[in-house]
């Protein structure tokens, strides 16, 4: 079982990101779960979304998890939200930021000593450049594909095209560009 926790603000697309990831993962024959924890959330409110991925049917419906991956798609939440909550010794963090990894960790004491498990990528800038709006969920998927090694990039892109099929071609192309660039830039 692989468990993923997204930290996001309402409107940044963590829920769609989690569902899109679930959709693609399911095409590989795995069982998936995608859900979110939000109240009557207004745009900009902090929220969390979750994925579970398993070879067998997923019976656990609890929100509680010890995540294998923590994906932070809002730069400020890395500092203000408890992103290391219920972590494991192997939990990997992918954080959207314009800072270098060293600068980021210097500002977040909870990440100290976890340099090998912290990855940074500027999803906000990437989405502005490729999609034209700050929609950091797509680039985060590209970064996740790279860090997790769960898929080949081309396989993931092909399947994301299917998930995004209802959108205009320009949006699809922008998302493909965002995923590819984040895949290459995450470090």
């Amino acid at each position, binding site marked *: 079982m692989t468990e993923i926790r997204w930290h996001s603000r309402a409107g940044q697309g963590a829920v769609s990101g989690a569902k899109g990831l679930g959709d693609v993962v399911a095409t590989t024959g795995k069982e998936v779960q995608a859900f979110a924890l939000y*109240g009557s959330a207004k745009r900009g409110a902090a929220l969390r979304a979750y994925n579970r991925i398993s070879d067998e049917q997923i019976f656990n*419906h609890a929100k509680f998890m010890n995540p294998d991956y923590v994906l932070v798609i809002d730069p400020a939440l890395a500092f203000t939200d408890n992103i290391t909550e219920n972590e494991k010794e192997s939990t990997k963090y992918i954080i959207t930021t314009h800072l270098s990894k060293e600068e980021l960790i210097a500002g977040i004491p909870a990440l100290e000593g976890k340099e090998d498990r912290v990855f940074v990528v500027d999803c906000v800038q990437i989405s502005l450049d490729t999609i034209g709006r700050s929609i950091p969920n797509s680039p985060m998927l590209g970064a996740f594909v790279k860090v997790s090694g769960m898929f080949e990039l081309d396989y993931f892109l092909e399947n994301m095209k299917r998930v995004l099929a209802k959108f205009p071609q320009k949006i699809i192309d922008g998302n493909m560009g965002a995923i590819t660039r984040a895949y290459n830039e995450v470090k």
Partner: protein
Amino acid sequence: MAEKFDLNEREVWDGNYAASQALRQADVDVVVAYPITPSTPIVENYGAYVGNGYINGEFVMVESEHAAMSGCIGASAAGGRVSTATSSQGFALMVEVLYQASGMRLPIVLNVVNRALAAPLNVRGDHADMYLGRDSGWIQFGAFNAQEAYDLALCAFKVAEDHRVRLPVMVHQDGFITSHTAQNVYPLSDEVAYNFVGDIVPVDDMLDFSRPVTYGAQTEEDWHFEHKAKQHKALMDSREVIDEVFAEFEKISGRKYNRVETYDMEDAEVALVGLGTTVETARVAAKELRKEKGIKAGVVAIRCFRPFPLDEVRDALEGVKSIAVTDRSSPGGAMGAFYNEVAAAMATSKSRPMVTNYIYGLGGRDLSIENCKEIFQDQKANADAGHITTDIQQFTGLRGPKLGFFKTARG
């Protein structure tokens, strides 16, 4: 002719979307709705299927849930296949009309996405609303995940419209935990799904002008009792039809449903009895406890809450030493409503096991695998001691000082 809807063999759907696809595939004629969180997407999607030509149906927006169920009654009495969805306060407002629907023996299917009742206002899942429908004369099915919300909605039409039954059916799913959680769902093809449900064959439909009929006539002490007794008997007799429909559904889907589901119960010494998604989380806990501590834990789940499967519950739990019945609803000054029903079933058993009650998950409070393990471990302590070692009613996942009520010295 309706447009073809593209379906994959494997979809990633949440419970709401799954239920709405069942309405599309059953070719529902009329949905009368007043949408409410978290069930809104079910009727919203149906409206979109109508608007986009995927279904030849009618979507009627009304001014309240009371009107929604009233509209469903009209359309169903006219002879149509009818469905709607609701939750929480909406369900509460619908209650008066639920009794009309069952009393008139109308085969309406109501998708209930369970949600807490205010005050305080809360949009998340618990079972408080479900218990309001307990005595309304409807058949009640419970889904534990999105796949089952889809499967059981299809089964619901077939049961409701069977001429031996002619009763309305509710299909319950947990608000957010099922309704807004996307999971793998394996849908049937449109053709297989529709052929399973079949064409509706109305009884005494009001649009048959050659044979006028009356619905909802008045009966005082001369006949009311006989009518209600007949209605109760019809509910009891529906058990056989439900079993038949579940057996037929297995043939087309490979998925077998039972009015009572049992997991790891063959040699169980302790058991948890649950409803909804809790059942699946508890299954994981039971399996892990068997491995980690050698505790013979099992889970019993109610698939068909009404008619209540008293015999099957008793048989499933016969021989177990200590049982935890879990209630996701505020007990309001008594033991949990679900506890009372299971405890009553066990009062008719040979082994007369210990039965304890756990209130949990109100307003969407999380229930973790660890919470379930603690419940099982309490039962193991009871089994070892030979008496209930805790208060009979406890609260799981509640913050603040430990809360509990009622004690017994009985072994």
